[in-house]
């Protein structure tokens, strides 16, 4: 490193952080709004399921529309832009260079949020495409695609211009994620919406995409970010580089094939291949367990409870559990019982709210004060958020999984699962409270920054000229 510094003076951390400031704000402010919108919609959907008379008069809020809008707001509104923001910062820090072209992602972030707005509105108005996780009609999905590419290019370029040549495991995960999403999102939209394939192939493409987004992409991003922050926040090195790399390759190799349930109406070879691939996920699962367990041991500091590290740890444990559930769903004995029940919903919600969102919260709480140069307005909210989110995820996901079991064990009867679903609503309520605290902190920070900007500008205009300047 010292030899490196003499050749290319690497930028100091505060300068790198400042160069990411505008893209981070543009992505995260919108994302935190969508996070709250998505959780509110999810709460409405959850209540409607066991109390159908709730908001029954409003056609915009029919159950089917609200569920789709809630999921898309959480995934496309929050998870994706927040991931991109964190990736931008992590890449700049890993490369030890200031972020070039920060205005491109700023423009792209606005395009992205516009796309989400159009997409969500179309769903609520009843113009969804009807494909799970691809409900946004053409107007919205094209904007998302363009915005993602616009962000991915300068971010990948900042990897290319890196001054620190040594690769870190997160590079692999996050670079793959930058390529993975545009590829799978474009393919799925082309084959389902633009030039639809027919019959069996439609279902296959849809489920393939859902798996590639929620399982593969989420895992790449969540693990990439988690593997960056785990050693950073504990002060212990990641154990080990090659385990992490092995996780990357096995995840990319086996992960893409999963997600086609055994009972789905596709030729046996497709569903069999998918289950075999899912069981092979045991390998990356073991890999992450080893990395996680070994990197936590040894001397170092864990920081206080409820800080960024707690979020990241919670997220990684959720990843282990959700992968275990995913594998279980692929085993014939278990899938016969749990397939197409609430259990699958529990798994995907754990992946979204328990895993990726938590890792992102931890990262954002760490990054944002550094990028802006001042602390959160209400730092005590962070601990409260951590507590509420942890409690919320447990009370949201566990009852859903039990509801799935009750359903499967009682011949798909919904009555058996209703009480569990009522409890899950409570969990979602906790999550909503936590998310509100998060959004408040982000928005307050954004407003303070804006205010400071106006103040400096005003001061610059009204300041009397210095005597020295008048003379020259």
């Amino acid at each position, binding site marked *: 490193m010292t030899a490196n510094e003499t050749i290319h003076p690497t930028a*100091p*951390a*505060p*300068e790198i952080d400042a160069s990411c400031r505008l893209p981070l704000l543009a992505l995260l402010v919108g994302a935190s709004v969508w996070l709250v919108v998505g959780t509110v919609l999810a709460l409405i959907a959850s209540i409607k399921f066991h109390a159908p008379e709730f908001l029954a008069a409003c056609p915009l809020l029919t159950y089917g529309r609200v569920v789709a809008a809630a999921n898309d707001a959480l995934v496309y509104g929050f998870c994706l832009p927040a991931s991109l923001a964190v990736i931008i910062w992590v890449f700049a*820090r*890993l490369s*030890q260079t200031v972020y070039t072209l920060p205005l491109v992602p700023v423009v792209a972030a606005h395009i992205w949020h516009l796309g989400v707005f159009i997409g969500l509105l179309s769903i609520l108005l009843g113009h969804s495409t009807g494909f799970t996780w691809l409900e946004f009609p053409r107007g919205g999905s094209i904007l998302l695609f363009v915005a993602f590419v616009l962000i991915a290019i300068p971010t990948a370029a900042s990897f290319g211009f890196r001054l*620190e040549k040594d690769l*870190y*495991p997160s590079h692999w995960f996050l670079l793959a994620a930058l390529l993975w999403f545009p590829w799978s999102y474009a393919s799925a939209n082309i084959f389902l919406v633009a030039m639809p394939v027919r019959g069996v192939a439609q279902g296959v493409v849809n489920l393939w995409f859902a798996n590639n987004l929620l399982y593969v992409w989420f895992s790449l991003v969540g693990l990439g970010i988690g593997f*960056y922050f*785990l*050693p*950073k*926040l*504990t*002060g212990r*090195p*990641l*154990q*080990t*580089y*090659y*385990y*992490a790399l*092995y996780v990357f390759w096995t995840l990319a190799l086996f992960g893409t094939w999963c997600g086609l349930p*055994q009972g789905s*109406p*596709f*030729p*046996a*070879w497709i*569903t*069999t*291949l998918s*289950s*075999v*691939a899912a*069981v*092979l996920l*045991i*390998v990356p699962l*073991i*890999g992450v367990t080893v990395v996680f367990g070994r990197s936590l041991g040894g001397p170092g*500091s864990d*920081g*206080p409870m409820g*800080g*960024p*590290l707690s979020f990241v740890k919670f997220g990684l444990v959720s990843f282990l559990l959700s992968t275990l559930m995913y594998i279980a769903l692929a085993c014939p004995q278990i899938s016969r019982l749990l397939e197409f029940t609430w259990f699958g919903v529990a798994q995907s919600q754990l992946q979204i709210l328990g895993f990726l969102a938590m890792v992102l919260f931890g990262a954002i*709480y*760490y990054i944002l*004060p*550094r990028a802006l*140069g*001042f*602390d*959160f307005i209400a*730092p005590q909210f*962070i601990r409260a958020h951590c507590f509420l989110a942890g409690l919320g995820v447990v009370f949201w996901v566990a009852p859903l999984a039990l509801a799935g079991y009750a359903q499967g064990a009682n011949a798909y009867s919904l009555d058996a699962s209703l009480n569990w679903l009522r409890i899950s609503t409570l969990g979602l309520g906790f999550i909503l409270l936590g998310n509100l605290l998060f959004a408040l902190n982000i928005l307050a920070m954004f407003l303070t920054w804006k205010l400071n900007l106006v103040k400096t500008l005003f001061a610059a205009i009204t300041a009397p000229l210095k005597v020295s300047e008048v003379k020259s």
Partner: protein
Amino acid sequence: MSADIKSSLPKPPSDPRPEAVRTTLPIWIIVLTLMLLFLGGLYFDNHSGWFQTQVYGPYASVDQLELYQPKSGAAAELARGKVVYEQVCGLCHGADGLGKPGQAPPLAGSEWVMAKGYNRLAHIPLAGLSGNISVAGKDWNMGMAAMGAALPDADLAAVLTYIRTSWGNGASPVPMEDVTKVRAGLGARPQPMSHDMLMTMPE
């Protein structure tokens, strides 16, 4: 800009680039992967139907499909014949083929049904039957309308096959083409058959 962040967040002593230990991967995890791949291959071999697109779960191979799927060929023909018989002929001749006193003569054990050829037999439902006829040693003098005239050839062939091979009747099946031929030979509005007319034609 000021590097001074008065953050209350847990801040590591410094803010370093994270490091990763670079010890080589232990061999056991690679062995485990290969073992799982091998087992996965075996499972795929047993359950996938080897890329045959007509094999859907829960079936695992073309052989299983043939074992459990409804048959085609002779068995399917019989099943079809039974259905048509019970709907069209069974009312008079009885589901058991024993006939009903005062309604219709038996088909089980009837020499007309079990004859070596089925030419005469095929004429009866296509054209109808009237007058004196002896069935299994008993005389009947009634009439039967052309009960099979409205049936498609395939259905009629299946019914005839069914009555020739059921209830202990051990005669040969009736192919559809022969029913087509008989129907063509009869013309549009055939006269009902009588015992004498039947006896003039080949068996």
